[in-house]
């Protein structure tokens, strides 16, 4: 049953990613690819069985991905409020993917981390991911002669919000880990790792 759920969610995420990629939405394509990687890593890291897909990842990546993909597929224009909400959800999904990526490193690749190193690495990874996305968007704009990044102010205000948000979310993560610990968080997100 577990393996069927995982495969079904992966298929859903793959379809949604393919649709947003076809419609040229780079942000959600990146989140979709990253989400799939986080799904796939435990499967390829010599696991003896498929684990149940992570509920938070499903909620924060699959659901908005399907919403964005449906909107793109049916050519529905979302209003500004829904776009803003989707952007905030995308930001949270990105942060959660950073957390999950580092948990995967810890669980499957012998990277030993304590709490402060884990929290700071998460914030660093998240801000780096934002930078990589901006570079990809820039390259995409040059290759396809588009104009998604329109002005310096738009870009910099976005980046400043993301950097501020990363530190705020990092602070919340640090506080959360202070009340629990990394091992139990790893079990709740990745499941029991052999």
């Amino acid at each position, binding site marked *: 049953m577990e393996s069927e759920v995982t495969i079904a969610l992966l298929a859903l995420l793959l379809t949604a990613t393919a649709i947003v990629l076809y419609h040229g939405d780079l942000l959600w394509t990146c989140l979709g690819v990253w989400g799939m990687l986080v799904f796939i890593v435990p499967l390829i890291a010599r696991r003896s069985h498929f684990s149940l897909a992570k509920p938070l990842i499903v909620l924060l990546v699959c659901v908005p991905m399907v919403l964005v993909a449906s909107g793109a597929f049916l050519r529905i224009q979302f209003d500004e409020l829904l776009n803003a909400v989707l952007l905030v959800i995308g930001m949270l999904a990105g942060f959660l993917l950073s957390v999950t990526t580092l948990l995967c*490193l810890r669980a499957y*690749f*012998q*990277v*030993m*981390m*304590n*709490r*402060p*190193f884990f929290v700071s*690495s998460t*914030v*660093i*990874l998240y*801000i*780096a*991911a*934002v*930078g*990589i996305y*901006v*570079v990809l968007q*820039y*390259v995409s704009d040059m290759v396809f002669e588009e104009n998604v*990044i329109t*002005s*310096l102010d738009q*870009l*910099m205000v976005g*980046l*400043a919000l*993301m*950097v501020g948000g990363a530190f705020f979310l990092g602070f919340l993560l640090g506080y959360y880990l*202070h*009340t*629990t*610990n990394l091992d139990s968080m790893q079990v709740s997100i990745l499941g029991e790792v052999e």
Partner: protein
Amino acid sequence: MRRGMFIITVIFSIPMLVLLFSAVFAEDSYANWTAVIGMIVILICPMLSWIGWVETPWPLVLAVDLSVFLHNLGLARFTLYYYETQWWDDLMHIMATIILATVVVIGLMVIERYSNTIRVPRHWYLFFVFIMVMMVGVTWEVFEYMIDQTFATDMQHSLDDTLDDLLSDVAGGLIGGIGAAIYLRGRASEEIIDSLEFKDNAIKIERWFNKKAEIEEQRKERV
């Protein structure tokens, strides 16, 4: 202080002083302050050596001093490389990110040497170096934007300039990370870290890491 570090510092301090005076005479406050900060940066490694904290390897000292000098040279009124030579800014970003990548690698090796609770396998260095370089690159651009907005300076010339800087950071991060991976192949981190001569600080660093680990263990038990 090692002889090599001393010679490099003296060699770069002289033209830096010339650039500082030229900025003062040109009444260019931005270049002036940049030169003052540059002089301080050039003196950091010798100061750390002088107070007995760490002996920075001479290639790193050379790279830091060279990049500080070239940065200030590009701002000088008699060259204006930053404004008239398109690739100058990209070159500076790539140099700075390679230096940052080297510092991150040294940091990771110090952690590997002295910490019992953090361990990053060598093949993951590239990943950590790259994300650290990108993080600093993005944060630097935000910092430049804030300085421009607050003091009406022109650190970020245009949208393309900012995006080119980020692209250069990607290139520098990859070059630095891959270079470090190649350099470290077959070398023990103990050997490299011991050459930095932390002396008494080595014991302090080890104690600090272990104390943190002890506190963490006690907290875990309480939870």
